[in-house]
Protein backbone atom coordinates (compact mmCIF):
# COMPACT_ATOMS: atom_id res chain seq x y z
CA UNK A 1 0.00 0.00 0.00
CA UNK A 2 2.87 2.36 0.80
CA UNK A 3 4.44 1.84 -2.62
CA UNK A 4 1.12 2.40 -4.36
CA UNK A 5 0.56 5.63 -2.40
CA UNK A 6 4.06 6.90 -3.20
CA UNK A 7 3.66 6.16 -6.86
CA UNK A 8 0.19 7.66 -7.23
CA UNK A 9 0.97 10.80 -5.24
CA UNK A 10 4.22 11.45 -7.11
CA UNK A 11 2.41 11.08 -10.40
CA UNK A 12 -0.49 13.38 -9.45
CA UNK A 13 1.37 16.09 -7.48
CA UNK A 14 4.66 16.85 -9.16
CA UNK A 15 5.33 20.07 -7.23
CA UNK A 16 4.47 18.88 -3.71
CA UNK A 17 7.15 17.37 -1.44
CA UNK A 18 5.87 14.31 0.44
CA UNK A 19 7.66 12.87 3.44
CA UNK A 20 6.77 9.31 4.45
CA UNK A 21 7.31 8.31 8.08
CA UNK A 22 6.54 4.91 9.54
CA UNK A 23 5.81 4.97 13.25
CA UNK A 24 3.45 3.25 15.69
CA UNK A 25 2.59 0.63 13.03
CA UNK A 26 1.09 3.41 10.96
CA UNK A 27 2.08 5.32 7.87
CA UNK A 28 2.41 9.08 8.26
CA UNK A 29 2.46 11.52 5.40
CA UNK A 30 3.87 15.03 5.84
CA UNK A 31 3.48 17.80 3.31
CA UNK A 32 2.94 21.54 2.91
CA UNK A 33 -0.35 23.07 4.00
CA UNK A 34 -1.12 24.68 0.62
CA UNK A 35 -1.82 21.23 -0.89
CA UNK A 36 -4.15 19.98 1.84
CA UNK A 37 -7.48 20.16 0.00
CA UNK A 38 -6.19 18.75 -3.27
CA UNK A 39 -4.33 15.89 -1.60
CA UNK A 40 -7.29 14.98 0.61
CA UNK A 41 -9.72 15.01 -2.32
CA UNK A 42 -7.32 12.83 -4.29
CA UNK A 43 -6.85 10.36 -1.42
CA UNK A 44 -10.60 10.05 -1.03
CA UNK A 45 -11.63 9.66 -4.66
CA UNK A 46 -8.73 7.90 -6.41
CA UNK A 47 -9.42 4.31 -7.40
CA UNK A 48 -7.33 1.90 -5.36
CA UNK A 49 -6.93 4.38 -2.46
CA UNK A 50 -10.46 5.40 -1.42
CA UNK A 51 -9.72 6.88 1.99
CA UNK A 52 -13.42 7.43 2.63
CA UNK A 53 -13.46 7.70 6.44
CA UNK A 54 -12.11 10.73 8.30
CA UNK A 55 -11.56 9.45 11.82
CA UNK A 56 -10.20 12.57 13.46
CA UNK A 57 -8.81 16.02 12.89
CA UNK A 58 -6.74 17.38 15.73
CA UNK A 59 -3.66 19.48 16.41
CA UNK A 60 -0.43 19.58 18.40
CA UNK A 61 1.08 22.67 20.03
CA UNK A 62 4.89 22.36 20.07
CA UNK A 63 5.26 25.67 21.93
CA UNK A 64 8.91 26.41 21.12
CA UNK A 65 9.20 25.30 17.51
CA UNK A 66 9.31 27.83 14.73
CA UNK A 67 6.41 26.08 13.05
CA UNK A 68 4.40 25.95 16.23
CA UNK A 69 1.34 23.88 15.34
CA UNK A 70 0.87 20.58 13.58
CA UNK A 71 -2.57 19.68 12.28
CA UNK A 72 -3.09 15.92 12.28
CA UNK A 73 -5.64 14.02 10.18
CA UNK A 74 -6.38 10.35 10.73
CA UNK A 75 -8.06 8.82 7.70
CA UNK A 76 -9.05 5.26 6.96
CA UNK A 77 -9.74 3.35 3.77
CA UNK A 78 -12.64 0.96 4.26
CA UNK A 79 -11.88 -0.71 0.94
CA UNK A 80 -8.21 -1.46 1.70
CA UNK A 81 -8.55 -1.59 5.49
CA UNK A 82 -5.63 0.80 5.67
CA UNK A 83 -5.09 3.70 8.05
CA UNK A 84 -3.13 6.82 7.12
CA UNK A 85 -2.03 9.79 9.17
CA UNK A 86 -1.56 13.19 7.52
CA UNK A 87 0.51 15.90 9.19
CA UNK A 88 0.75 19.54 8.20
CA UNK A 89 2.89 22.13 10.00
CA UNK A 90 1.57 25.65 10.63
CA UNK A 91 3.29 28.89 11.55
CA UNK A 92 2.19 30.68 14.70
CA UNK A 93 1.90 33.97 12.77
CA UNK A 94 -0.79 32.73 10.39
CA UNK A 95 -2.26 29.66 12.06
CA UNK A 96 -4.93 28.95 9.48
CA UNK A 97 -5.53 26.11 7.05
CA UNK A 98 -8.13 25.21 4.44
CA UNK A 99 -11.02 23.16 5.81
CA UNK A 100 -11.48 19.60 4.58
CA UNK A 101 -15.12 19.44 5.71
CA UNK A 102 -16.19 19.81 2.09
CA UNK A 103 -14.46 16.46 1.42
CA UNK A 104 -15.36 14.56 4.61
CA UNK A 105 -18.45 15.80 6.47
CA UNK A 106 -17.07 14.15 9.61
CA UNK A 107 -14.30 16.75 9.67
CA UNK A 108 -16.81 19.50 10.45
CA UNK A 109 -17.07 19.01 14.21
CA UNK A 110 -13.48 17.80 14.56
CA UNK A 111 -12.24 21.04 13.02
CA UNK A 112 -14.53 23.03 15.29
CA UNK A 113 -12.96 21.25 18.27
CA UNK A 114 -9.43 22.00 17.02
CA UNK A 115 -10.44 25.63 16.51
CA UNK A 116 -11.91 25.82 20.03
CA UNK A 117 -8.92 24.25 21.74
CA UNK A 118 -5.99 25.61 19.67
CA UNK A 119 -7.32 28.68 17.88
CA UNK A 120 -6.49 27.31 14.44
CA UNK A 121 -8.73 28.94 11.82
CA UNK A 122 -10.13 26.55 9.23
CA UNK A 123 -10.78 28.61 6.12
CA UNK A 124 -14.04 28.04 4.21
CA UNK A 125 -15.46 26.02 7.09
CA UNK A 126 -19.30 26.11 6.91
CA UNK A 127 -19.87 26.72 10.65
CA UNK A 128 -16.70 27.56 12.57
CA UNK A 129 -18.06 28.04 16.10
CA UNK A 130 -16.62 26.86 19.41
CA UNK A 131 -17.35 23.22 20.24
CA UNK A 132 -16.98 23.03 24.03
CA UNK A 133 -16.21 26.38 25.61
CA UNK A 134 -18.80 29.18 25.91
CA UNK A 135 -19.11 31.20 22.73
CA UNK A 136 -17.85 34.42 24.32
CA UNK A 137 -14.76 32.72 25.77
CA UNK A 138 -11.63 34.55 24.65
CA UNK A 139 -8.90 31.92 25.01
CA UNK A 140 -7.89 28.56 23.56
CA UNK A 141 -7.37 26.17 26.48
CA UNK A 142 -5.04 23.55 24.97
CA UNK A 143 -2.44 26.11 23.93
CA UNK A 144 0.65 25.69 26.05
CA UNK A 145 0.56 29.23 27.45
CA UNK A 146 -2.94 28.73 28.89
CA UNK A 147 -2.80 28.03 32.66
CA UNK A 148 -4.31 24.75 33.88
CA UNK A 149 -6.76 26.44 36.25
CA UNK A 150 -7.84 28.91 33.59
CA UNK A 151 -7.92 32.67 33.77
CA UNK A 152 -9.90 33.89 36.80
CA UNK A 153 -13.11 35.62 35.83
CA UNK A 154 -12.91 34.60 32.18
CA UNK A 155 -16.00 32.35 32.49
CA UNK A 156 -18.81 33.96 34.52
CA UNK A 157 -20.62 31.97 37.22
CA UNK A 158 -24.27 32.61 38.11
CA UNK A 159 -24.82 34.95 41.04
CA UNK A 160 -25.44 33.34 44.42
Amino acid at each position, binding site marked *: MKELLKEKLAKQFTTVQFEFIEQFDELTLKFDKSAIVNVCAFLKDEDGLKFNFCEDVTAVDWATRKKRFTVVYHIFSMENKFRLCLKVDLDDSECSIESVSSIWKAANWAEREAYDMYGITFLNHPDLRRMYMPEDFEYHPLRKEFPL*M*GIPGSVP*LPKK
Partner: protein
Amino acid sequence: MGLESKLTNDGFFTTTIDALASWARENSVWPMPMGISCCAIEMMAVGDPKYDIARFGSEVMRFTPRQCDLMIVAGTVTYKMAHVVKKIFDQMPEPKWVIAMGACTSSGGMYRSYNVVQGIDQFLPVDVYAAGCPPRPENLLNALMQIQEKIGKTRVKDFPDAQQSGFDTKPTDLSLSKN
Protein backbone atom coordinates in the same frame (compact mmCIF):
# COMPACT_ATOMS: atom_id res chain seq x y z
CA MET B 1 -43.70 5.51 68.52
CA GLY B 2 -45.05 8.52 70.33
CA LEU B 3 -47.71 9.31 67.80
CA GLU B 4 -49.45 5.92 67.89
CA SER B 5 -49.57 5.79 71.69
CA LYS B 6 -51.21 9.20 71.76
CA LEU B 7 -53.74 8.08 69.19
CA THR B 8 -54.71 4.88 71.02
CA ASN B 9 -54.87 6.42 74.51
CA ASP B 10 -56.34 9.90 74.33
CA GLY B 11 -57.11 10.27 70.67
CA PHE B 12 -55.58 13.72 70.46
CA PHE B 13 -52.35 15.55 71.10
CA THR B 14 -51.33 19.17 71.28
CA THR B 15 -48.66 20.86 69.20
CA THR B 16 -48.12 24.06 67.29
CA ILE B 17 -49.02 24.36 63.62
CA ASP B 18 -45.45 25.51 63.09
CA ALA B 19 -44.02 22.26 64.47
CA LEU B 20 -46.60 20.17 62.65
CA ALA B 21 -45.75 21.83 59.35
CA SER B 22 -42.04 21.17 59.88
CA TRP B 23 -42.79 17.56 60.78
CA ALA B 24 -44.81 17.08 57.60
CA ARG B 25 -42.22 18.86 55.50
CA GLU B 26 -39.40 16.82 57.00
CA ASN B 27 -41.03 13.52 56.09
CA SER B 28 -41.98 14.36 52.53
CA VAL B 29 -38.85 15.88 51.03
CA TRP B 30 -39.28 15.66 47.27
CA PRO B 31 -35.89 15.61 45.57
CA MET B 32 -34.98 17.22 42.27
CA PRO B 33 -32.47 14.71 40.86
CA MET B 34 -29.85 16.93 39.22
CA GLY B 35 -27.94 13.91 37.89
CA ILE B 36 -25.08 15.30 35.82
CA SER B 37 -22.58 12.45 35.83
CA CYS B 38 -21.59 9.19 37.54
CA CYS B 39 -22.89 10.12 41.02
CA ALA B 40 -26.34 9.92 39.42
CA ILE B 41 -25.91 6.13 39.17
CA GLU B 42 -25.55 5.87 42.95
CA MET B 43 -28.47 8.26 43.30
CA MET B 44 -30.56 5.87 41.21
CA ALA B 45 -29.42 3.00 43.42
CA VAL B 46 -30.90 4.89 46.38
CA GLY B 47 -34.27 4.62 44.68
CA ASP B 48 -34.14 0.85 44.23
CA PRO B 49 -35.63 -1.63 46.75
CA LYS B 50 -32.32 -2.44 48.43
CA TYR B 51 -31.76 1.08 49.77
CA ASP B 52 -35.28 2.41 49.17
CA ILE B 53 -35.46 6.15 49.57
CA ALA B 54 -39.25 5.67 49.93
CA ARG B 55 -38.61 4.78 53.59
CA PHE B 56 -37.82 8.47 54.08
CA GLY B 57 -40.78 9.79 52.10
CA SER B 58 -38.54 10.97 49.28
CA GLU B 59 -39.40 8.51 46.53
CA VAL B 60 -41.06 11.20 44.43
CA MET B 61 -38.14 11.95 42.14
CA ARG B 62 -39.55 13.97 39.29
CA PHE B 63 -37.53 15.73 36.67
CA THR B 64 -39.41 18.94 37.23
CA PRO B 65 -38.20 21.57 39.65
CA ARG B 66 -41.65 23.06 40.32
CA GLN B 67 -42.71 20.45 42.86
CA CYS B 68 -39.37 19.88 44.56
CA ASP B 69 -37.97 20.80 47.97
CA LEU B 70 -34.46 19.38 47.70
CA MET B 71 -31.94 19.57 44.90
CA ILE B 72 -29.46 16.68 44.83
CA VAL B 73 -26.60 17.90 42.65
CA ALA B 74 -24.99 14.61 41.64
CA GLY B 75 -22.01 15.05 39.38
CA THR B 76 -19.32 17.27 37.93
CA VAL B 77 -20.55 20.82 37.38
CA THR B 78 -18.74 22.61 34.57
CA TYR B 79 -18.84 26.37 34.15
CA LYS B 80 -21.20 25.94 31.23
CA MET B 81 -23.53 23.63 33.20
CA ALA B 82 -23.49 25.89 36.27
CA HIS B 83 -25.90 28.29 34.58
CA VAL B 84 -28.32 25.44 33.85
CA VAL B 85 -28.15 24.15 37.45
CA LYS B 86 -28.78 27.63 38.79
CA LYS B 87 -31.70 28.17 36.41
CA ILE B 88 -33.34 24.94 37.57
CA PHE B 89 -32.66 25.78 41.21
CA ASP B 90 -34.29 29.18 40.75
CA GLN B 91 -37.46 27.48 39.51
CA MET B 92 -37.87 25.46 42.71
CA PRO B 93 -40.35 27.00 45.15
CA GLU B 94 -39.21 28.14 48.62
CA PRO B 95 -38.37 26.63 51.05
CA LYS B 96 -35.64 24.57 49.37
CA TRP B 97 -32.50 22.74 50.30
CA VAL B 98 -29.39 21.49 48.46
CA ILE B 99 -27.24 18.38 48.82
CA ALA B 100 -23.82 18.54 47.12
CA MET B 101 -23.27 14.87 46.34
CA GLY B 102 -19.73 13.65 45.77
CA ALA B 103 -16.23 15.07 45.49
CA CYS B 104 -16.66 16.89 42.15
CA THR B 105 -19.74 18.75 43.25
CA SER B 106 -18.33 19.67 46.64
CA SER B 107 -14.86 20.77 45.58
CA GLY B 108 -14.19 20.04 41.91
CA GLY B 109 -12.77 16.67 43.00
CA MET B 110 -10.17 15.20 40.69
CA TYR B 111 -11.04 17.77 38.01
CA ARG B 112 -8.65 20.51 39.09
CA SER B 113 -9.06 22.20 35.74
CA TYR B 114 -10.14 25.35 33.92
CA ASN B 115 -13.57 24.01 32.97
CA VAL B 116 -14.93 22.60 36.25
CA VAL B 117 -16.43 24.73 39.03
CA GLN B 118 -14.32 24.10 42.15
CA GLY B 119 -17.31 23.56 44.44
CA ILE B 120 -20.95 24.42 43.74
CA ASP B 121 -21.12 26.52 46.93
CA GLN B 122 -19.72 29.28 44.73
CA PHE B 123 -23.20 29.78 43.31
CA LEU B 124 -25.66 27.62 45.33
CA PRO B 125 -26.49 27.65 49.07
CA VAL B 126 -25.40 24.09 49.95
CA ASP B 127 -26.85 22.54 53.13
CA VAL B 128 -25.15 19.13 53.23
CA TYR B 129 -22.05 17.79 51.49
CA ALA B 130 -21.94 14.02 50.88
CA ALA B 131 -18.33 12.82 50.69
CA GLY B 132 -17.21 10.05 48.35
CA CYS B 133 -16.37 9.41 44.72
CA PRO B 134 -19.12 8.50 44.24
CA PRO B 135 -20.72 8.35 47.71
CA ARG B 136 -22.27 5.02 48.67
CA PRO B 137 -26.08 5.01 48.64
CA GLU B 138 -26.01 4.81 52.45
CA ASN B 139 -24.03 8.03 52.44
CA LEU B 140 -26.65 9.81 50.35
CA LEU B 141 -29.35 8.52 52.69
CA ASN B 142 -27.32 9.89 55.58
CA ALA B 143 -27.19 13.25 53.86
CA LEU B 144 -30.96 13.09 53.38
CA MET B 145 -31.43 12.30 57.08
CA GLN B 146 -29.31 15.31 57.98
CA ILE B 147 -31.45 17.47 55.71
CA GLN B 148 -34.53 16.06 57.46
CA GLU B 149 -33.06 16.95 60.82
CA LYS B 150 -32.43 20.46 59.60
CA ILE B 151 -35.95 20.81 58.20
CA GLY B 152 -37.43 19.44 61.44
CA LYS B 153 -35.73 22.21 63.40
CA THR B 154 -36.81 24.93 60.99
CA ARG B 155 -39.64 27.19 62.15
CA VAL B 156 -41.63 29.82 60.28
CA LYS B 157 -39.49 32.60 61.69
CA ASP B 158 -36.43 31.14 59.96
CA PHE B 159 -37.65 31.94 56.47
CA PRO B 160 -36.51 35.25 54.97
CA ASP B 161 -40.10 36.40 54.33
CA ALA B 162 -41.05 35.87 57.97
CA GLN B 163 -38.17 37.93 59.24
CA GLN B 164 -39.30 40.87 57.12
CA SER B 165 -42.87 40.66 58.43
CA GLY B 166 -42.01 41.40 62.04
CA PHE B 167 -40.99 38.24 63.92
CA ASP B 168 -38.74 39.58 66.64
CA THR B 169 -37.32 36.26 67.87
CA LYS B 170 -33.85 35.01 67.01
CA PRO B 171 -33.57 32.42 64.22
CA THR B 172 -33.37 28.78 65.33
CA ASP B 173 -29.94 27.17 65.61
CA LEU B 174 -29.98 24.87 62.57
CA SER B 175 -26.52 23.39 63.03
CA LEU B 176 -26.52 19.64 62.46
CA SER B 177 -25.68 17.05 65.08
CA LYS B 178 -22.25 15.47 64.73
CA ASN B 179 -22.38 11.77 63.95
